[in-house]
């Protein structure tokens, strides 16, 4: 066998500097890849990127729309972050998001315009979380009690949820469908009592709630006994069992919490900026984008906030590119590339690569010293 010129060794605990540097490099590398494709198709990457920055942050309206786009991503990012940290591969945030939206809009419509906003708004929020958690439960319970792999079940549930929403709006005359519009069906507007108050252009309360939930998640996972036990299970299920922690219960709890975050994302989004169960505004892949957010935030609930704002900025800037003749899908490419580099970067955070000679030198020095 040939001898290798480089040696890969696990690094142990990664430095703070590195875990900030690698995500930054990932974004930069993705911008370079995107820039190459832009240049190949005859665009000037710098002016395209400049245009995107202006659209996302150049005006007070731009900033508020960026934060609106970021709000559901904070929550779907949290959904992925808490689950992946425990090696629960919930890739069904997309479906849980939609169920949250269906539950929240449903309860708001059912309560009608007469109920006071102070009652309706909390109910709408909780309903979203419950919808997401229930949908996650369909995959979580078989995973925990029967050992059924959750990757495929959560993935498939996304498409069932999507078709369920389409059925409610396009395939039936459900209470979610707007009875006033018959030509091209759309969602029934949520009564004003269920809508969130706006405070900065169109930006509403849901952004504040999302940020508060991120801080709460950080506290829950980082500072409580429950969070500590969850982290032990994530590191090693055997250690957890030895320490007397109930592993199935912890996995179930995390799975449902993850679903609840995704459901909250959907609930806050319909009761906030969208205002109806509108398939065209909800089927945007926000659940999958949450996985990008979580990966780039390295599963840290607080880091999810700035990363979600970055992704929200990209989503917000995308449509404006049409005015300069650039396909808005460059945004999806950039996000995909960011995820590729971020996940690849995990290798360099976890491992150290050094030339063989240097490792050998160090070893011989150690031997001499001994």
């Amino acid at each position, binding site marked *: 066998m040939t001898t290798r010129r480089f040696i890969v060794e*696990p690094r142990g605990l990664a430095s703070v500097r590195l875990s900030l540097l690698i995500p930054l490099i990932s974004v930069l590398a993705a911008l370079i890849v995107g820039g190459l*494709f832009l240049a190949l*198709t*005859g*665009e000037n990457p710098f002016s395209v990127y400049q245009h995107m920055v202006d659209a996302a942050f150049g005006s007070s309206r731009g900033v508020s729309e960026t934060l609106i786009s970021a709000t559901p991503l904070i929550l779907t990012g949290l959904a992925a972050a808490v689950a*992946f940290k425990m090696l629960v*591969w919930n*890739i069904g945030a997309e479906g849980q998001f939609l169920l949250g939206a269906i539950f929240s809009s449903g309860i708001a419509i059912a309560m009608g315009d007469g109920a006071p906003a102070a009652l309706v708004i909390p109910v709408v929020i909780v309903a979203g979380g419950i919808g997401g958690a229930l949908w996650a439960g*369909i995959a979580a319970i*078989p995973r925990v009690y*029967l*050992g*059924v*792999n959750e*990757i*495929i*079940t959560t*993935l*498939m*549930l996304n*498409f*069932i949820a999507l*078709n*369920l929403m*389409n*059925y409610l709006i*396009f*395939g*039936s005359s459900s209470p979610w469908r707007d009875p006033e519009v018959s030509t091209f069906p759309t969602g029934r507007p949520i009564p004003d009592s269920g809508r969130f108050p706006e405070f900065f252009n169109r930006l509403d309360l849901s952004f504040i709630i999302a940020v508060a939930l991120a801080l709460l998640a950080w506290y829950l996972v980082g500072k409580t006994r429950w969070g500590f036990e969850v982290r032990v299970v994530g590191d090693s299920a055997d250690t957890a069992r030895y320490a007397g922690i109930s592993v199935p219960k912890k996995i179930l709890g995390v799975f449902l919490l993850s679903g609840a975050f995704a459901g909250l994302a959907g609930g806050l989004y319909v009761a906030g900026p969208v205002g109806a169960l509108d398939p065209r505004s909800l089927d945007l*892949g926000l659940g*999958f984008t949450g*996985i*990008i957010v979580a*990966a780039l935030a390295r599963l840290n609930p607080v880091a999810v906030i700035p990363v979600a704002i970055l992704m929200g900025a990209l989503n917000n800037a995308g449509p404006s590119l049409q005015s300069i003749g*650039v*396909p808005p*899908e*460059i*945004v*999806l*490419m*950039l*996000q*995909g*590339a960011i*995820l*590729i580099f971020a*996940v*690849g970067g*995990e*290798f360099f955070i976890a491992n150290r690569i050094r030339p063989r000679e240097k490792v050998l030198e160090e070893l011989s020095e150690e031997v001499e010293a001994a």
Partner: protein
Amino acid sequence: MNDSQLILTMFAAIGLGTPLIFATVGEIITERAGILNLGVQGMMLVGAVSGFWATFETGSLTLGVVVAMIAGAVFSLIHAFASITLRVSQIVSGLALTIFGTGLASFLGKAGSDPLVGEPSRETFEPLITGGIADWPVVGPLLFGHDLMVYVALVVAGAASYYLFRTRMGLSLRAVGEEPASAESAGVNVAWVRYAHVMVGGALAGLGGAYYSLALSPTWQDNPIGEAGWIAIALVILASWRPWRAIFAAYLFGAAVRIQFTLQTLGSPWSDVPSSLLAMLPFILAIVAMLALTSGKRARLLGAPAALGVPYFREER
């Protein structure tokens, strides 16, 4: 439903199932090597756009198919590198492939001064035989009325079954997916085998994608494949990791898609069945299959590779 409608539905089901056979067999081969690739959707879209482009530029269907397969295989290398060499999360890396590929295909279709979007394909796959035996009642169209790729898909599925279960290479491949450490000690290069079969999966996904843009809907549009890549991942389970079973799973799914249109033509009450509920069926079936067949120890009987999704470390520390 009268006879001609039944035959039309079955005929269409075979066409609609064909790209799914390619993608499903490709994913089965990849998963048999122990690598889960959730990038099928992305690889299919990259194949669809590159195959369409190559045929559009040259007028050659053969070149379109070859370019689509090469593009799919090269694109899958990203996932192979991340999951085999870097050993990072296969799930996240596969999803990244899908997100990037989806964006890339749309971008390439729209970019430039003379974009592909809205352009019809210069050549499309046509039925091999017209008239003669293809006109025989019932069996004529069903057996002989298809284009070349329908038969190629059957050959690919059959060859993949033979390869997996009847050849030495196939045995090594399955060993790598079941017990990579034992395979390594028996002299199999685990990394090499995994790289090769991720690329085979990528090539077949690319081919499946190109069948959409060159046969099923031969005008370039943003997403010509719908959710085919995700459906292929479901069909792998329904086929219980056996290529020849993928044929039936794919045709069955093709029928489920086609029946939505057939029902519309039959009038009330058939046309009242909401298409969105029918569209759920394959996904519900996949979940039921997962629950019924992969819970607990029975997963091993079904054929799911034991080391699926588990990174392999050559020197265990």
